[in-house]
């Protein structure tokens, strides 16, 4: 590298250092943090139930459904239906 090149290099470096970065806008970090937390909050499930609770609730619903089906008398078309499919076939 010649003396002229070195001088040019130094001059270029000096010039480039003139470009300063503006400071971070006030409150920027706070705004971004709030946005991240808000987004994260929105992603949370509507039913914040644990899997165990979900299984228990489904089991209770199934038992209640079966009990209702057994104890309720048949109505409508179901009331007129034959007692069993085998009877119908014979």
């Amino acid at each position: 590298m010649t003396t002229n090149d070195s001088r040019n290099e130094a001059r270029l470096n000096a010039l480039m250092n003139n470009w300063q970065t503006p400071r971070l806008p006030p409150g920027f970090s706070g705004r971004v943090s709030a946005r991240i937390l808000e987004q994260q909050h929105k992603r949370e499930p509507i039913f914040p139930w644990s899997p165990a609770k979900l299984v228990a609730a489904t089991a209770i619903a199934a038992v209640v459904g079966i009990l209702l089906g057994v104890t309720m008398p048949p109505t409508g078309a179901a009331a007129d239906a034959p007692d069993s499919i085998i009877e119908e076939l014979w």
Partner: protein
Amino acid sequence: MQMTVDRSLPQDTPVPADLDDETLIARSRAGDAGAVRLLVERHSATIYRIAYRMAGRRAQAEDIAQDVLVKMLDYREGWLSKPGFQVWLRRAVYNRMVDIHRKQRPWAFIGIDTVAEKEDGAPAQDAVLAAREDENQVAAAVLNLPLRQRMAVTLCFYEQMSLAEAAVVLKVSVGAVESLLHRAKAALKRTLLDNEE
């Protein structure tokens, strides 16, 4: 059974300031507001600086930095390559800039924030105006470089990163970064030093 969901934002919990980024990300994903704040505070200045060098406008730099930081919880350590969180953040700024560049109409002149716009009020003296003029010229010259060269200059010159680190961010070899810097410097010399003569 109580069906209401607590929709209030999570409160700050004390977070040790010396925790590493990966731990903070894990805690942030679990809803730790303190960890989110610490992560953002730790990286926002750097990300904003890089975005500003790449975009040249404060408003756009703010948008880019915000986009990148909001997505930082998506960071997953690679299975084969482990570039690390800080590299990932810098690469995200570059990728965002590439996206913007692609969508931008080629004939649209975006321009830069002139340095004189930075401070309002006080009348500027001649020396200050001359320095600002220099600064504007440098900013315009750097912003005129192709994106890769601009990023190489930003990382290696302004962010003082090593060639190897810049190569990881840009996903190129060290030799390629050297070549980018060489071409960038030649262009900057032509623009800035030839103008002086």
